[in-house]
């Protein structure tokens, strides 16, 4: 490719990028930020590469169901899973104030194999604490999908069950189970740390019985869940499945 050709292409692309940077209208329509738009980029060797920043770094593959191992092996695995519940430390509402006392000597959740992790990649349990606004739900979905399977959700507080005292709010959702699969509900407004511990015990029972299979349910009904999520998250500017 000669230098002239490249210059032509660069000027063309500059024109395009000017169009993008004045993207107030386009921002309103699609909610995709100008820098996240699909576009063409010139590589150092002069070749032209198509770039789609939202989808390039993530897998576009849908989640799949994981079949259980045979008999005793699955029982052993479930026992092991039940003894190491690593919680993603992500407070979504007022209930998250009840989580820090769990890690103090008074309640000491650590004795049950429960511990907090700073990132979704290292955790397998997600406590959705209290009311969940649409804006937070977006982050929650992203975090949940990044967690490795098998993963569990504990819904803490009445807001996640039926909307609680925020049932008529324009910005908080009413039922969490329409958007993400929930393993254990912990009712109350707010539940005490003891209730949360009881929730962990219940989750352990479910895992040991092989009934905590909500991650598989999410994979099975993926389209349905996605449709519900997209119904309320109108500025969907992230990958459909980001793991």
């Amino acid at each position: 490719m000669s230098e002239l050709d490249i210059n032509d292409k660069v000027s063309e692309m500059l024109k395009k990028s000017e169009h993008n940077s004045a993207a107030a209208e386009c921002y309103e329509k699609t909610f995709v930020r100008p820098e996240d738009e699909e576009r063409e980029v010139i590589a150092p060797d002069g070749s032209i590469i198509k770039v789609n920043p939202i989808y390039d770094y993530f897998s576009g593959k849908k989640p799949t169901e994981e079949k259980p191992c045979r008999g005793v092996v699955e029982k052993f695995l479930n026992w092991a899973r039940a003894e190491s519940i690593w919680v993603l430390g992500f407070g979504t509402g007022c209930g998250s104030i009840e989580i820090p006392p769990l890690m103090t000597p008074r309640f000491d959740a650590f004795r049950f194999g429960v511990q907090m992790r700073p990132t979704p990649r290292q955790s397998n349990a997600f406590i959705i604490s209290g009311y969940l606004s649409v804006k937070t739900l977006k982050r929650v979905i992203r975090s949940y999908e990044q967690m490795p399977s098998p993963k569990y959700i504990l819904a803490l507080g009445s807001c996640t069950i039926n909307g609680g005292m925020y049932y008529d709010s324009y910005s908080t959702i009413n039922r969490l189970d329409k958007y993400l699969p929930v393993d254990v509900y912990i009712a109350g407004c707010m539940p005490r740390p003891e209730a949360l511990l009881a929730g962990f015990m219940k989750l352990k029972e479910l895992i040991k019985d092989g009934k905590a299979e909500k991650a598989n349910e999410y994979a099975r009904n993926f389209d349905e869940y996605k449709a519900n999520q997209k119904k309320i998250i109108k500025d969907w500017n992230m990958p459909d499945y980001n793991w």
Partner: protein
Amino acid sequence: MKEILDKIQAKYNLQDIAIQDNDQAYVTVGKDLAIDMVTYMRDYEGFSHFVMMSCVDWIEDDKLQLLYLLNSPEKKCNIGIKVFIERNKPTMQTAHHLWKQIWTYQRELREAFGIDFPGSPRVEENFVLEGWTDMPHMLRDFDTNKYAEETYFPREGRKTYDPATYMREKLYPKQPVTAKKNKDDE
């Protein structure tokens, strides 16, 4: 406080003056003179601290009311400058050149009440809500209950009780209801 008010009354044709306290007063001024007056109060009367800016929806009068609250650290007094603007497609002159933090207030008012401030930086960006497509949610004719019922999934079987009646029935089931009503009235 009174001296200041006397001074500005003639100058800005104040429509309504409410002196709440020795150190607090609220005045209503016409839309065209409002930013002039805020500037004057800042530069000549020493009200150099911008406290906040808010909006009230007077749906019965078909008006929106903006409030600029200023504080004078030297004189230790507050003045609230109120402006009525039209409710249908409201616009207001921007004041971001006076204090930088007004950007943020104006962005918030644009999202919550739909008031446009032409020239205010980044005013069209999202403030709290993301991807909001409905009408501005702080206007009083926005029915939040109806919106929540249509948008989210209300759980069937959820009941709401009037707390006063419910507690009365629970705590004093034997007493007749009418007698207690009279008690409350007293």
